[in-house]
């Protein structure tokens, strides 16, 4: 079921555009030009509210404060005023995120997705990223359910990347975590270890090299 985003934006051109972008991204979008009529019924079934801070008849932040009296729906605040005070007040009143105009559609969608993404609270001993699975307790890794033979360092490197799938991890962070600081804890040896892991994983581009940073475990969710 598509997630439902409610947009409160008084600029017609922008409101229509945002609806279009959200629908293109496979989300359900509704749009109100004014927030004066927002109540508990309006927010029923809404997964995210995109709230313009400057609405014609009501201040967006006042509306946010009011909304928080009956709803915990995530709110993304939009503002054309790049004011720290607005941002700080917005977050204090219970906004989950904010965006400053102008922004790119991708920028907007990325932020909407980040807010809609359910936080994975359960901390399991088993990490799964695409075809890769790692049993932390047993310290064993599987590729498509076939066990991989990894050294201690290799497993630690893979685990570090798998803990934050899709995120680039710096070479220093990887070296600090996986390599023996007393031994050949050199960032150069890191490349050797990574190329061995890649070989064991097959030719799949599971581990990406990130220029200027380090490595990343490609995540399917990264569109």
């Amino acid at each position, binding site marked *: 079921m598509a997630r439902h985003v409610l947009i409160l934006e008084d600029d017609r051109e922008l409101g229509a555009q945002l609806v279009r972008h959200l629908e293109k991204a496979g989300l359900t979008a509704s749009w109100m030009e004014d927030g004066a009529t927002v109540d508990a019924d309006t927010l029923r079934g809404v997964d995210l509210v995109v709230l313009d801070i400057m609405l014609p008849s009501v201040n967006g932040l006042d509306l946010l404060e009011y909304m928080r009296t009956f709803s915990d729906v995530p709110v993304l605040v939009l503002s054309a005023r790049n004011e720290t005070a607005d941002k700080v007040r917005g977050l204090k009143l219970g906004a989950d995120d904010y965006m400053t105009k102008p922004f*790119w559609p991708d920028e907007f969608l990325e932020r909407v997705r980040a807010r809609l993404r359910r936080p994975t609270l359960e901390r399991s001993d088993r990490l799964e990223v695409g075809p890769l699975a790692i049993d932390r307790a047993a310290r064993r890794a599987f590729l498509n359910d076939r066990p991989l033979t990894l050294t201690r360092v290799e497993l630690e490197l893979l685990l570090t990347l798998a803990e934050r799938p899709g995120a680039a991890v710096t070479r220093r962070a990887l070296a600090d975590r996986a390599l023996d600081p007393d031994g050949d804890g050199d960032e150069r040896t890191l490349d050797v270890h990574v190329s061995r892991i890649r070989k064991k994983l097959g030719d799949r581009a599971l581990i990406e090299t990130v220029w200027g940073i380090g490595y990343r475990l490609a995540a399917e969710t990264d569109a």
Partner: protein
Amino acid sequence: MKLRAQLTITTIAVSLPMIAGLVVWDDGSRQRAAEDELAAFGQGLASSARWRARCEASPETWRGRPEGPPGHPGRPPDEHSDQPPHERGDQPPHERGDRPPHKRGDRPPHERGDRPPHERGAGRPPDGLTGRPPDESGAGPPPGGHGTDHPPHGRGGPPGPPPRGQHRRPAAFFAYDAKLASPHPEAPALPASLAVIADGYVSLPADRGLVRVLFRVPGGERCAFVLAEGTTEPWLGGVLPPTQAWLLPFAALLIAVVLTSAPLVGRIRRLTTGVEASVASGYVTGVPTEGNDELANLARAFDGAAREVRHQLERAEHREQALRDFVANTTHDVMIPLTVLQGHLAELDQQTSVGDAMAEAHYLGALIQNLSLAAKLDAVEPEPLAEPVDLAALVERVYNRHRPVARSRSVRIDRAVPPEPTAVLGDVTMLEQAVSNVVHNAVRYNTAGGHVAIVLERDHDRFTLSVVDDGPGIPPHERERLLERGYRTTDARTRSPEGHGIGLDITQRVIAKHELELELDAAEEERGLRVTVAGPLAT
């Protein structure tokens, strides 16, 4: 305290010359009175025939003493004083003999009518001697003196100041003939020009503590003139007069000055405190005005000045606020159509290449954000920038902001943040724009196929945020100049890719305002650029 000391010193400085003048004046009048008295006494004696006969008989030894009255000059008349010592005392009489003496006696009495007759009239004894016949009174020694036998101090010897403490000595006389020559060996020489006096007397210069008068003896030949010499009470001989009651007003004045200055000083202090408080409050509080005197006028003048400054400040603040509001409103107004434009461009970009148009719109937005931020940076913000800023979220926002344009320019952009929360105290808008400017430049001046990496790292209680690119970079000497405060080349504002990009001066100012470190390095072997912002983490 200083003011009180100044007032006291001023009072003393004014009083002392006044006292000195009083003393001098008092001394002169006492001298004259003593002269009058001495002359009257001598002339009174001269009216006695026996006295005159003795004088005529042996002027070479006659001193008039055996019949001398009991110390005329020794009697210290309270209202009299002798000359101040510095005026006469150090000069021997004969050296000043040719000086024209004050011929007081020559003047007719009516010309000096302002003086009591008994003080100047010939032949009349002074008040203190009234009732004492001169021929009888002369028999006794001067009262309280050092005896009749006491030699007249200073007579005959080298003239000098009389010994201190010797308040009384007998009157001494020298006889002179009509040509003012005296057979007496100790008699001082007198100029003959003085021989013109008829009645009355002439006062002559004398040593300190002494008075000398010359008067004519009626009918005398060898004793035609008599020089009378007597003492006055040495008033300033190092010993203050017995009564110093006249000093009381002076002391009272001094006390009054000290007492009245206390509340004055207190008020001035309060005024100072008030002015300082007014300045400290940015002239919001007024200056307290109390009373209705000059000090109150000063306070009112301060208050008026403070009000004027306040007024000017308010006007300046008002203007500044109006300008800032204008910039803010304009920014707001521009951002909405710009967002829409960017949306359209992004949609178009999926069909045909409008990458350049996207970059321009992106550039325009950045320019306006920097314009808005520059207005804020120039404003004097009273509140410190002390909100915790989540740097990982900041990096994420900046990354997302520039990714669409980077993609359209075929520049690969990536970011890495630590899993732990990484926060710094500051202004999120300013910091975000500072980082955004650096990333914008890294993308804008890179070439197709280039890379940009935003890396946030933390090490104990410090963070490091680096933006690395593999673009053309900046030569070392230019890098140093770019970090100089206030440096702003025309290059920095130019649109050309050869320039150093927009907003680097804004970045520099924001980083400086947050007391963070900003470094520019080559990314690798003089290629590319690494911009590093570092500082302490919020605890």
